[in-house]
């Protein structure tokens, strides 16, 4: 599981972290039943506040991607596996956007428009 966050980005850190973990779960590099690192540990690794990590975990819990339980930490649910079709579709979108030489921002704008 590779997580990256950019301190200089305008996207909130907890959003970046949640997106990074979501991507890892979809790619299968973190599997259902696996425990995410302890919030304190991850905060130390990424040099961010522990509450930022907890907030990211809460976002993922609200989405149903992780289970938060006292004493057990954040455990990945099997929901990520069901994202596989979505991720295949996203791959297709990305490939198509590359051949059309669309910028990432344009593609994101198109997706936002379509989701509205």
């Amino acid at each position, binding site marked *: 599981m*590779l*997580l990256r*966050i950019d301190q200089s980005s305008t996207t909130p850190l907890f959003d970046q972290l949640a997106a990074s973990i979501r991507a890892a779960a979809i790619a299968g590099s973190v599997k259902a039943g696996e425990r995410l690192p302890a919030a304190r540990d991850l905060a130390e690794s*990424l040099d961010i506040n522990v509450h930022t990590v907890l907030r990211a975990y809460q976002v993922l819990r609200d989405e149903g991607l992780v289970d938060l339980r006292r004493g057990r930490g954040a455990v990945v649910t099997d929901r990520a596996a069901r994202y596989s079709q979505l991720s295949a579709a996203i791959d297709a979108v990305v490939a198509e956007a590359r051949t059309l030489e669309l910028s990432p921002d344009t593609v994101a704008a198109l997706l936002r428009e379509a989701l509205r």
Partner: protein
Amino acid sequence: MTTEARPMPGRTRYRMIGLVLPLLIALVGAVMAASWLPDLPDPVAVHWSSEGADGFGSAWTMILLPLGVVTGFTVVTQLSLLNAPGRGGLTSTEKILVVSRLFMSVLLTVGVLGSLAVQRGLNDAADAPNIAAPMIIGAVGGFLLAGAAWLALPKAVPTVTEAETAVEPLDLAPSESVYWSRTVRISGGVATVMGLVVALAVGSSILASIGSSSGLPVVLTSAGFVMVLSLGMSFWRVRADRRGFAVRGLLGWPRVSIPATEIAEVRVVQVNPTADFGGWGWRWASGNRTGIILRSGEAIEVARRNGKRLVVTVDDAETAARVLQTLASRSPV
């Protein structure tokens, strides 16, 4: 397996020293022992304690024991050498395996011959004298022969496939932080073998303690320790971040961490557990290597500035190597 038919260097020498010689010694020993059969008491003494012979059995068991054990050991160890021809020779770990066949063959053959020799002409095996001398001669002789065989065999080939492609650093902006982690667990096959070994150890130590009930707490404590240790060693979390590289077992121990500032070089390597590390688990190998080896195949090798190397079999080792490479070049030296 390998398509090109390149013969392994020194193959004839290997066959003579590693296969023919240990089996020949055991065979000659068995023939010699069998020729003594008319002079031997029936049953013969097969086990000794400090007070003298205390276990008795059929002479044939003793006669065939070295041959059987050496044949079995040779066949089993041969299986782990299957990759050697493709690699161009034996690694040092494999050489140890091969010469230990000779050690075992001499030790058992001399030991059995010696313990039968002292019983020739006896009517009752209970009168058999002590056999410490042949056992010591067998051990020393076996050790010397194994040492000679080590020198006679071709030089060991380097362990762990060298010269993998250099890892590309990540395109990481200075404002970006990165975290990589992965869990590693032992494969089903290894877990089964480990479970059997633990069960065997626990079972045999309980059997052994039946005679003296005072030993039971000690046995249970050590059995418990073995179980906890195997459990703790069967699941690991591997982590790479700005602090460096860290590996910790399920129970938080054992753990190893290498600070980013101490990392000299990171590579992705292919590991063959028996050839490179002599097995699975927490291992030491030549070339200043420590290994946490839970399967064969892809592994990350982290070299410290002091020359020590840590090898961990983990999926997606390439990403880990890229992360560490990037962070190591970022941290001030």
